[in-house]
């Protein structure tokens, strides 16, 4: 029914994933990982998994990113790859 949205979201998810692991510094990686979670959330919504999407929005976008930022804040932003 809404497979176009799903497909697009899927592509964006994969792009985000690849970008997140190739980001040149960790702050960017964390931010892109946040976007990844957003996209994943959209993907799940499009699949009709509202509860999962809700959780992912709360976790992935909010808390995970905040935790990761906190960790990076307390360590270092530098990454070699």
């Amino acid at each position, binding site marked *: 029914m809404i497979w176009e949205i799903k497909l697009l979201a899927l592509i964006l998810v994969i792009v985000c994933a690849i970008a997140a692991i190739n980001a040149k510094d960790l702050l960017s990686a964390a931010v892109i990982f946040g976007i990844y979670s957003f996209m994943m959330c959209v993907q799940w919504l499009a699949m009709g998994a*509202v*509860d999962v*999407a*809700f*959780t992912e929005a*709360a*976790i992935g976008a*909010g*808390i995970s990113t*905040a*935790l990761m*930022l*906190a*960790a990076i*804040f*307390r360590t270092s932003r530098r990454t070699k790859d």
Partner: protein
Amino acid sequence: MKKTALLAVILTGALLILSMENFPSWGDVQSPASLHLSRHFIEKSYEQTLTPNLVTAVLGDYRGFDTMLETVVVFTAALACFLVIRLPRDVCTPGLFYYRHTRTGLVVRKHDACELPGENPTFERVDSDWPPHDVVVVSTCRMVIPFIQLFGLYVVAHGHYSPGGGFQGGVIFAASYVLLAVSHDLRTLVHRLNERVTHLLSAAGVLLFFGVGLFGMAMGLNFLDYGALEGVLGMSLASGHSLGILLVEIGVGMTVTAALVIIFKLLSSRGTVTEGL
């Protein structure tokens, strides 16, 4: 390394793709996955638990033990963070204290802590990192935080009827506290929810869940059988289950909130719980 990794990954991926050969195709209504268990859940769960949100019904009731363990996992994570990175109290006292003059933004550094005068202090204690004060962010967040908290509670309470539940609500509630810490400073958060409270709260949440389970045992049923709530307040069996789910969700919410706040506090302050992100 990278090439080996790539090779391994591609091989594994190819194998996994090959093994999907016999999967029912996408969205097949007659696939075993949507027939056996799920059919029962969809068709029976409302009359058994009076909960229109099937996910909540299954999560809170049929697979209540899973959910309890999931709560325990969060609880564990908080304890784990505490055990791993919390520094001893005597190490946490900073050597220098910073005070900002609230009218001018000047910052004063002192070697020992000052008593701040009562109601409307001229000076306020600030982090060593970032003395400037951002009026906009602070007052916007003050405005927004109560609504976020309310929303969190709403999500917990309405898990039966709409997406959400204890976990999501708890996370949102915790997020409001994260916002508090981010917009003000960590000290404000710690002042509001100190370590003792968060730990007790996280344990209390799991205990509430556990207590509902034990209540079932006390009434001669199995552990976590919410059927034991039947008759409390003159309820029917199904609404007993519904109430059980609600209680359980509240417990989950408490634990999740407290645990995430604990984790955030510890991570952002590297275990000192004084200054943070």
